[in-house]
């Protein structure tokens, strides 16, 4: 199965880190990514730029509405993701537990809808 791992972390904490600590974190992420590439779990993964760079698009009554944000008042923001292949949820959990941000933030694991399947898991 494929799982999307959404990495939520406090941007404010990241900004407060020293350059050395940030470098150490990047190094750790690099090693982790390398590991899951070698194990064949890695499908994709990226860090996202800060939430301040986010833009939201909606189409309402045929009109395109573009806004800055979202700036929900949450402590943690979506900061990056991995798309992984894992045999079941237990393997996905054990991968998520190794993502460096798991120690400060949280990882949301979402199974991907595969072709021929509806979001409710029924065979289309």
């Amino acid at each position, binding site marked *: 199965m494929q*799982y999307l791992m959404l990495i939520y972390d406090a941007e404010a904490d990241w900004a407060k880190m020293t350059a050395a600590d940030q470098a150490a974190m990047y190094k750790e992420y690099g090693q982790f990514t390398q590991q899951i590439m070698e194990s064949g779990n890695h499908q994709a993964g990226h860090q996202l730029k800060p939430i301040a760079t986010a833009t939201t698009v909606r189409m309402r009554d045929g009109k395109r509405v573009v806004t800055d944000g979202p700036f929900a008042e949450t402590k943690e923001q979506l900061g990056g993701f991995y798309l992984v292949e894992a*045999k*079941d949820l*237990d393997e*996905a*959990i*054990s991968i998520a537990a190794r993502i460096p941000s798991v120690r400060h933030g949280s990882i949301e694991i979402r*199974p991907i809808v595969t072709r021929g399947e509806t979001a*409710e898991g029924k*065979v289309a």
Partner: protein
Amino acid sequence: MDLEKLHREESGRILSTLIRLLGDFDLAEEMLQEAYATALQKWPVDGPPANPAAWLVSTARHKAIDRLRREKRFEEKQAEIARYSEFLAQPAAGFSQADAEEERFPDDRLRLIFTCCHPALSEEAQVALTLRTVCGITREELAKAFLVPVATMAQRLVRAKRKIRDAGIPYCEPSAEDLVERLDAVLLVVYLIFNEGYLASSGDALVRRELCAEAIRLARVLCALLPRPFEAQALLALMLLHDSRCEARVSAEGELVLLEEQDRSRWHGEQIREGTELTERALRGGATGVYALQASISALHANAKTAQETDWRQIAALYAVLLRVYPSPVIAVNRAVAVAMAGDLEQGLALLEKLEQREELREFHLLPAAKADLLRRLERRGEAAAAYRRALLLATNDVEIRFLRRRLAEAEG
């Protein structure tokens, strides 16, 4: 052959094996129902098979094959085909075609328990699913036990099964590295089931007894199937020791009887003996968790010939350790009471007064209730009455409210 009895005792095992064979909770449940229906028609005529449980598994399995063929599902679904052929190729997964009915089949309940108690499911769902699938309790009985409409319970079960399927929760025992964490979740579910039966204030008394019995049965399965069963043994011991007092803790009028005032001759001796022995075995095996500590405390109570002979000093010491492992308000109150009962009423009272400062214990009715009891023993009746009144404002359980009212009347009288 008593089909009902078979259903009760073996359905968890049969269902576990069917889920393994079919890889589908709903299909397994449905096919087992159909197999029971066939058994109801056939057995009275042909006589029951030599091994009824294995007969039910193989009958349900054949019905599943027919169903899949009829629906041509395995022609359309790649995964299903793979599973289906695997499933045809392994008629010996416990039984060979010819002597299926004589053979015992492997016990798959452990993996079913781990799947049902997966932390990715809500606690509520874990409890319901475990009782439904591993214990074979019906939706109707579950709804009655948990005081929710049948439709709510059915929905809860459907959602849980859907999450297992869609999120890819595996049907297997956890890896060695996850075992401890996962086992904690399983033991908690078993204990929740027991407490639901033991402590619940309302609902059908018979249904509640059933829940206690099921929890004990589940713990026995865990003890038999786990490679290192010590924490499970401690939990089993704890439940047996609690359960040994179930007849003495409620009077003929349905009133709560405190441990101190219980008629000890009504305690269940065999359960106390087994619970005590299991506690010792668990401790020797290295169990140090909350269940082992609570079982040790319970064993001290259970083995005291009279309330006066209770070894309160040791109980107070065990509560102090327990409080470090598991800092809960109930345990903090119990520890204070144990200190008081060990001979130092004033110190116990001081501990309770310190707990009263804590914001999160403001609404906790057992705290003023415990304080009232110590004040009563100190013969400070006016203060005791005030504390009983405060406890009454906070208590919600009918049995407890009646008990507190009685005590208040005594303090005022």
